[in-house]
């Protein structure tokens, strides 16, 4: 019994990782005032590109790096659309998700001629702890959470970012370059989402399949709200949501019923919904979130 439980806990850690990374990224973006619901799309693009790179170079680290960089680039695009072109941030995010789904499917077909999934690629080597495996990215995600918490609350750049999200007019009057800070934040946010996506294909599964992210980008958004925009709390939230994800996978393996697979798959989404509903009353988003900035 204990052994199974510990297995489940370790599995939760693996599922927690992308939810923490993407959430931290989105926290940085949202603290600066921009909302990016396209992180699901970024994760998908990153997962795909990381797989492609790893496939052709044989080097999983390089794949993860490219995935992260691509995420940053997509964050840049979203930033330009939101900040300079003053586009509707929600709609742009929706478009990005749809685009990602289509483009990665097209890519899957044109590179490997397969409509479902790519061949398996090299994975990131794991660290062994008590006969179980933990990914270095999982540990990194926790460290990243702590680092970003500290940066946002205790440093000058963190102050600037928060100022943009709370009162951009006041911040600008105080010499903060709103455009640059917000753009930088969306790039950082995109990079972390990219890292999360790359992790999913290279580290967690070992291949890319259509729709591999399966809504995890949105669960990460739920994690942002759950953690009240505090990077430290995303670890807790990520673990809770990751636990349900792991539970679904675990039950699937144990119960071995094709029919019930579908029912188990519902667990992460239903639990996310319930958790968010229960905890939401206490959260306070940045005051200027999602509004394009118009100079007076």
């Amino acid at each position: 019994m204990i052994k199974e439980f510990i297995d489940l806990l370790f599995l939760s850690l693996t599922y927690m990782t992308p939810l923490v990374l993407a959430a931290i990224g989105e926290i940085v973006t949202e603290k600066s005032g921009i909302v990016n619901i396209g992180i699901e799309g970024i994760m998908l693009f990153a997962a795909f590109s990381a797989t492609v790179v790893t496939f052709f170079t044989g080097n999983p680290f390089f794949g993860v790096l490219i995935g992260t960089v691509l995420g940053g680039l997509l964050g840049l695009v979203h930033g330009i659309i939101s900040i300079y072109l003053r586009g509707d941030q929600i709609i742009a995010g929706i478009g990005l998700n749809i685009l990602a789904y289509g483009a990665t499917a097209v890519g899957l077909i044109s590179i490997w001629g397969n409509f479902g999934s790519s061949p398996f690629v090299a994975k990131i080597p794991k660290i062994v702890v008590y006969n179980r495996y933990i990914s270095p990215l999982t540990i990194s995600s926790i460290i990243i959470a702590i680092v970003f918490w500290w940066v946002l609350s205790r440093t000058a750049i963190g102050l600037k970012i928060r100022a943009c999200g709370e009162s951009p007019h006041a911040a600008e009057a105080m010499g903060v370059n709103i455009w640059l800070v917000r753009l930088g934040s969306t790039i950082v946010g995109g990079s972390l989402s990219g890292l999360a996506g790359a992790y999913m294909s290279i580290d967690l599964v070992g291949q890319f399949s259509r729709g591999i992210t399966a809504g995890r980008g949105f669960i990460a958004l739920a994690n942002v709200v759950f953690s009240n925009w505090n990077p430290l709390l995303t670890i807790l939230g990520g673990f809770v949501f990751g636990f349900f994800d792991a539970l679904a996978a675990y039950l699937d393996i144990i119960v071995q019923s094709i029919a019930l697979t579908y029912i188990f798959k519902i667990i992460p989404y239903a639990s996310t919904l319930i958790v968010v509903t229960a905890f939401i009353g206490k959260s306070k988003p940045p005051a200027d979130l999602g509004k394009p900035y118009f100079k007076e």
Partner: protein
Amino acid sequence: MSDSYNNVVIETKKLSKIYPDGVIALRDVNFKVYKGEIHGVLGENGAGKTTLMRILYGEIKPSKGIIKIFGKNVNFKGPWDAIRTGIFMVYQHFSLIPSFTVLENLVLTSLSMGEKSWDRVSKKAEKIMKTTGLSVPLDEKVEDLPIGLQQRVEILKALLMNAKILILDEPTSILTPIETKQLFSSLKELKKAGITVIFITHKLKEAISITDKITVMRKGIIVGTIETRKATIEKLAKMMVEKDIKVNAKRDRKTSKEVILSVRNLEIKDENNVLKVKSVSFDLKRGEILGIAGVQGNGQKELIEAIVGLKKVERGKIYLGKLNITNKPTSEIYSLGISYVPDSRCIGLVQEMNLIENSSLTHMKTVSKNGFIMWRMAIKLTKNIVYRYNVITKSLKTKVKYLSGGNQQRLMIGREVLRKPKVIIVAEPTHGLDLAATKFIREQLVKLRDEGKGVLLVSSDLDEILQLSDRIAVMFDGKIVALKKADEISLEEIGMLMGGAY
């Protein structure tokens, strides 16, 4: 006070600003300020004082003319050039981050000067607070501080950035009389420290009490600069205003004793669950204008919102005639005969909708039948409003946001008056409007009174209250501290009551 050339800190020669649409905001302005002065710039709305200051601050580019700061020609590309030269402007609306602490705000500002150490900023701030006597609690959130202290944080910001010239834009408009006194003594301290202060205002008395020199502006030109000790209120008023805009509110009409709206022991909380209205009672009679005077933020807004059902009444009752309307839904209160013109044109109107749709906003009963909207009726109504209230617009289908403020206000008031209410509540009806619109609207309010309606006027403009009201109530800290007939209360008394004295 030597007037030697070396002591000129600001000088403009033939400074002009003409906008692309032809409006002349400034014309050949020769403005001179000497070191260590408290220099007042006096003028009505639209006189050009703010435009002049914004040009000095680098926010607006002049069309013509020379600007010299500390004797050197300057060509500012933005406020940061001005700040680097030693000028700092404190606006009516502060540029502070409300959810940050005072220290965080100061650090943020210092970052732009390259200063990254929270410690050094903190120490410098403490030093400045000591030498000037302007103190603020560094670790409190700005949003938790009273307005007077928030303003002080702005001034501290300026000093932190080594400002030698401080421009204050209507600083007392949001202060109580007591806070105003505190501000003035702070300014005297700053003067001692060698800082030059430019003080924009439209209040004659203030200008005389605190400044060394006064420059009066009118319609984009400088009418004259006069030493304050040689100035009188009458002289200044004459320089400022072209024609008398006093509306002849006849008060010799017999006002009926019939009470139309009565409010008893109201207690109302705001969004943060803070008690904003603390046991207010008054009666509004038919055929009278009851003016509620007071600095914004003393509960007036919550009071009138509660009367129309937009805010919950915690305790107390509201009666329309004999009917208890406490906490009834807004739509019901409107249909019982109360109309409300709010202080914000973004609330009273839907800026993205056109005139016809906006006119229908509170006329659903007239304009709709069985759930369907009869647009023909709505158009008729709109035409009526536009005609009677002189709303200038190219077409009825234009979006309201393209109308000028004055025309939007006319539309709103016209719409509410045409509901033929028994009671009409207006808040800040002429705020930000030009002279013609102001005159028109005030005339309309008097007309309503003459027709036997009850008019509840909430305004932070004392002149307006005095001109129009038959009876005046003063609100301070959520209570009505005085309720008297207009000719039984003086301007000074109102001012003191507004500030909490007594």
